[in-house]
């Protein structure tokens, strides 16, 4: 089952093309990441899925049903955590969650239990009766999440839920997202923090200027720019190293010796680190340090767009 599907989707704001003829498929059960710089079109894509923005052309399906034909079906199955905190400062945490959950048809005991559960999930159960405007930024972010999950949606969309909060709250949120996914929800997560996306997403698409410029698991994305791994081995002396013996090891592509460091580039699909280390130890060369260099998504982004994710 496809949780979300775009078919040649385009969205314009005047002359600006915010989503440019995009095709996309998000499988059920995935934690799907939208990674892209400011203004890439992440929030626009999300607001379209939620039925908050009109589509200029193309089609969007939620749980394989056209959202234009059945907007309420899509809305019932989605819980969205908007990028801008959207809660009522004059209501308590409990009242906020309860109000939004009741719009999805929850009532009575079921409502109460769902609200309690949602607040507990984000760790605000102790502060259920606090007015939201008394909350810190991080607590507001967490309440913002609670308001989106109480009605137990099949798809949970989080639009930069960790902006402007302390590392502790951030970790709490990332853990929560993983837990929600384990509990059976498909998660769509946007961010321009590469570490977050790398840490939790099972599939990522890199978005820039309203277009998906690359899509895949993080390994797949990294292999786009390179099919090799680099190991840097620092030794006490390079005098006794036999380059030919190293080159003979399966998978090794090239060797480069520089002062006391040996740089060995291997093909990515071969794991040969143990053999390389074995060579050094068996030839009696003392290893001082081993460093492996794998490209991160930042590098991927830089390579694909020629720009950094964040300035």
């Amino acid at each position, binding site marked *: 089952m496809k949780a979300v599907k775009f078919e040649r989707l385009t969205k314009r704001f005047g002359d600006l093309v915010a989503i440019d003829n995009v095709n996309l498929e998000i499988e059920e059960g995935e934690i799907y990441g939208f990674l892209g710089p400011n203004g890439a079109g992440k929030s626009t894509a999300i*607001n379209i899925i939620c039925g*908050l923005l009109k589509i200029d052309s193309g089609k969007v399906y939620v749980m394989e049903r056209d959202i234009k034909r059945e907007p309420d079906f899509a809305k019932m199955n989605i819980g969205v955590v*908007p990028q801008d905190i959207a809660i009522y400062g*004059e209501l308590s945490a409990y009242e906020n969650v309860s109000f939004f959950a009741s*719009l999805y048809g929850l009532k009575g005991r079921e409502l109460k239990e769902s609200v309690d559960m949602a607040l507990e999930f984000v760790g605000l159960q102790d502060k259920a009766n606090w007015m939201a405007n008394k909350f810190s930024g991080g607590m507001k972010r967490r309440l913002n999440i609670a308001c989106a999950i109480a009605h137990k949606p099949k798809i949970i969309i989080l639009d930069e839920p960790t902006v402007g909060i302390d590392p502790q709250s951030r970790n709490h949120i990332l853990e929560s997202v993983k837990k929600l996914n384990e509990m059976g929800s498909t998660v769509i997560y946007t961010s321009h923090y590469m570490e977050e996306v790398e840490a939790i997403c099972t599939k990522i698409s890199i978005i820039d200027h309203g277009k998906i410029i690359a899509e895949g698991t993080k390994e797949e994305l990294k292999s786009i720019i390179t099919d090799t791994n680099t190991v840097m081995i620092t030794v006490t002396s390079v005098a006794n190293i036999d380059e030919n013996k190293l080159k003979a090891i399966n998978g090794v592509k090239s060797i480069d010796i520089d002062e006391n460091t040996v740089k060995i580039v291997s093909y990515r699909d071969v794991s040969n680190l143990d053999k390389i280390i074995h060579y050094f130890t068996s030839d009696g060369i003392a290893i001082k340090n081993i460093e492996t260099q794998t490209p991160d998504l930042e590098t991927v982004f830089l390579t694909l767009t020629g720009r950094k994710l964040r300035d």
Partner: protein
Amino acid sequence: MRNTFILVKNTLKLFFRRKGNLIYILLSVLIPFVVLTMNLSGTSKLTIGVINNDTGILSKDLANSFKDSQKFEVVNIDKSNLDKYVTKGNIDFAIIFPKDFSKNVIEDKPLKVQIVSIKGKEVALAVKSYVDEYISNLKYLSISSNGDSSTFYKMYQEYEKNALIKLGEYTVKDKSVINDIMTRSVGMFIMFLMLGTSRIAELMLQEKRDKTYSRIYAAPVKSIVYALSNFIVNMIVTLFQIGLIMLLLAVFLKLPFDKSFLEIFVILVVFGISAIGLSMLIVAFSDSTAQSGGLSTLIITPSCMLGGAFWPIEVMPKVFQKVSYFMPQRWAIDAITKIEGATSSSDVLLNIFILLAFALTFILIASYKMKMSNKTADFV
């Protein structure tokens, strides 16, 4: 349906939790009521400025008869000072007797007594009918005396002694004062009512600004349901204000629960609906709270002025008087005046009808505009 109820409940909660709103709603009822009762208990004497160009004594006697009634203060003023007196508020109205007043009464010739009022039509009318009645009584004397002044005065002295008609007991003037105070208080209440409705309608713009609006639309809620719930909240608050002021009137001023009472209530309610319609219209045409706040003050205060909420329509220039027909306030106040004057209720029915037409027009334009912008615009 259920979502409408949920939204109404939430909006009411938000409105009354926001600082000052509850106080505002209570004051909007209490201030006009206190102003009303204070003015009534003050039994304020009306001050008449008399400009007497008459050489005879009849005009003096007439003026003095006002004094005798204990309800009026009489001061003699000069015509050249009239404007000054009026603008300073030293006098409530003026009576100008023409040069040959006494002579013309005796000879039964047409009279031109001029009454200048700044307190409104009701007082002027009451005073005028008082003067008319006084003169028409003298008419009998003039007819009987056949225009002969010495016969007239002889009879006049007898007439005075026997006081065939005790002019001081004329009752209309008391009521007219009350009516005038009542009208001004209603005018004030009406303005507060309008400002209150725009506060509630503006909650929609605040929700847009705070993004809770898009969160509501991310749930299965139709935009019409949202607008309807705001209307219902506005209706509840407006009914509360009207109900409270009617209750105060009934309890403290002992206004009887009769047909007039019901009519005043109905007039205020239909006016309230048109005010809500107007506030939704303002919100539909503005896209920020700052803008709608500006529009509200730009529309509500001047239209209250033009509609006669602050002063009688008659004191305004003719052009403005004509414009006032396009203000719902005018029709509400006009109806209240009619009810107090105890005219037949079919007249008020016309006012109710016109106010309903205003309400319908405002609401239709507002919903059309909202529908159009929802069709083309986005919810975030």
